[in-house]
């Protein structure tokens, strides 16, 4: 019993980098255990897309395309995952660090009496006892967690392992479960904002704080995001004031992000904000106060009024984009 089951999420039928990251991660753990990396896909994903998982070390894909499961129901989805684990005799189950991990994985944990680590930051440090690293106190410390149960569930923090190519022969196998009782949750409406880069997918995030002085001053920040193909975000006071929607709030109580490049513009860098962005590869800060704590977390800093500096940044980045 050393197979690894990887729960792959699709977004309107397509996989994203985060899916290939957990496929790579799960495949490496399978290698360490001497087992197979098996992916479970729930939803309507084309065969051409499913076989892409083979590029990252997956050897089998369970294709669960039952139309009754078009909408997420945590209870029903957890049953599907648990059945797949049992069918494949998996000893490790991998989820991404997304909202699905928070919604479904804990239920699978109880079903299978499998200990769970949310937002692991790397490969197991040890297989016996099975020890997984993770951040605690939002990055103010790291911890080693031992999972003591026979089956282990790990959700991987985004961008903490990377995508590793490892082409394998992959078979796609249809998968279904016996008909269940009707779902006890019903989705009655879906609203999606199209055309925007999503915070959790973004390689670059441009984030604004109180230094921008008011919601009417966001246009140059959005322009910078446009130029860089970045997502927009904000600090807590900005969303609390209603200048920007809560969904943009980045920080300890908002979203935890890990982009390649994070711009903190007019954000002083309260400890709670920094906790949410500390996994960014590079942080650029612009602030009038040279003692602002954000400069302790930043890699590059500019001291000055963000409203004056933003137009200059836009000009400089636009010039760079035109030349490169």
């Amino acid at each position, binding site marked *: 019993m050393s197979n690894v089951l990887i729960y792959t999420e699709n977004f309107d039928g397509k996989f994203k980098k985060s899916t290939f990251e957990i496929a790579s991660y799960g495949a490496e753990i399978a290698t360490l255990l001497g087992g197979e990396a098996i992916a479970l896909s729930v939803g309507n994903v084309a065969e051409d897309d499913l076989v892409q998982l083979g590029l990252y070390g997956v050897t089998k894909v369970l294709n669960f395309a039952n139309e009754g499961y078009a909408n997420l129901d945590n209870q029903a989805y957890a049953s599907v995952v648990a059945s797949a684990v049992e069918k494949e005799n998996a000893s490790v189950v991998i989820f991404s660090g997304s909202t699905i991990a928070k919604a479904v994985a804990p*239920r699978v944990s109880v079903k299978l009496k499998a*200990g769970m680590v949310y*937002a692991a930051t790397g490969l197991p440090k040890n297989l016996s006892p099975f020890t997984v690293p993770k951040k605690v106190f939002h990055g103010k410390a790291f911890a080693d967690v031992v999972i003591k149960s026979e089956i282990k569930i790990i959700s991987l923090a985004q961008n903490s392992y990377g995508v590793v190519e490892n082409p394998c022969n992959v078979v796609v196998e249809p998968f279904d479960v016996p008909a269940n009782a009707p779902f006890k949750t019903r989705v009655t409406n879906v609203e999606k904002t199209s055309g925007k880069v999503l915070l959790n997918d973004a390689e670059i995030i441009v984030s604004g704080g109180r230094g921008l002085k008011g919601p009417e001053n966001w246009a140059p920040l959005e322009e910078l995001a446009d130029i860089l193909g970045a997502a927009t975000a904000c600090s807590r006071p900005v969303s609390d004031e209603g200048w920007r929607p809560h969904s943009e709030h980045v920080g300890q109580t908002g979203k935890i992000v890990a982009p390649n*490049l994070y711009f903190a513009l007019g954000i002083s860098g309260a400890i709670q904000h920094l906790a949410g962005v500390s996994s960014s590869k590079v942080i650029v800060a612009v602030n009038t106060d040279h003692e602002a704590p954000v400069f302790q977390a930043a890699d590059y800093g500019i001291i000055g009024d963000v409203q004056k500096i933003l137009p200059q*940044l836009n000009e400089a980045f636009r010039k760079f984009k035109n030349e490169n």
Partner: protein
Amino acid sequence: MKILVCISNVPDTTTKIKLTGDQSAVDLANAQWIINPWDELALTRALELKEASAGKIDKVTVITVGDKNAEPTIRKALAIGADDAIRVDAAPADAFAVAYEVSEAAKAENFDIILCGIESSDYNGSAMGGMLSEFLGLPSVSSVSKLEIEGDQVKVNREIPGGNELVEPETPFVAIVQKGIAKEPRIPSMRGIMMARKKPLNVVAPAGATALTEFVAYQPPQPKAACKMIAAENVGELVELLHNEAKII
């Protein structure tokens, strides 16, 4: 109708995190303890719903798993406005054990809505609410940023990547809530603090859950290199550094 709000007792989010000498634990001897921020928002929303229900919601109960040291925090939840409290007298070993203890303590009362914060600010587990719903065999909705009751129907907003879904769960159910569920957490009033002393705080014996995970060692984060400052009149240098030095654009 009865609402249960699960409360985690956590160190204040501004606490400086120090490790013990042997790095086997976090040294929290001097920490201030608070209601986990998401749980505080959940409690606030529960009280708003009760007040707007014209008597239909007759009770908001709070529950925590912890030793006697957790009592000031649960007392604060009573001061904010919860009607009564349960403390399961056990160390909160891991999410699995806590969820099991809460499920056992909650079974007797048949709560209609159970609210849990989506994460705790200490060990960042994000698992307890989902586990609790599975132990109770109840439906759950996670990433809930809005919760309304219309007649007998509960309607919640679930945040999804790039949007929102309106979800109608059957009750009883577990809502795992995040930012947006309430605007600002309520602060206890003087009157609330006085009244909280007389409200029931029931201490129950643990059911004897077994933890499946154990935190065995800690490390401090890597120190960060000093920030490179760029003159405000020369932002072109930033672009240059991001391209050639950081190689990020």
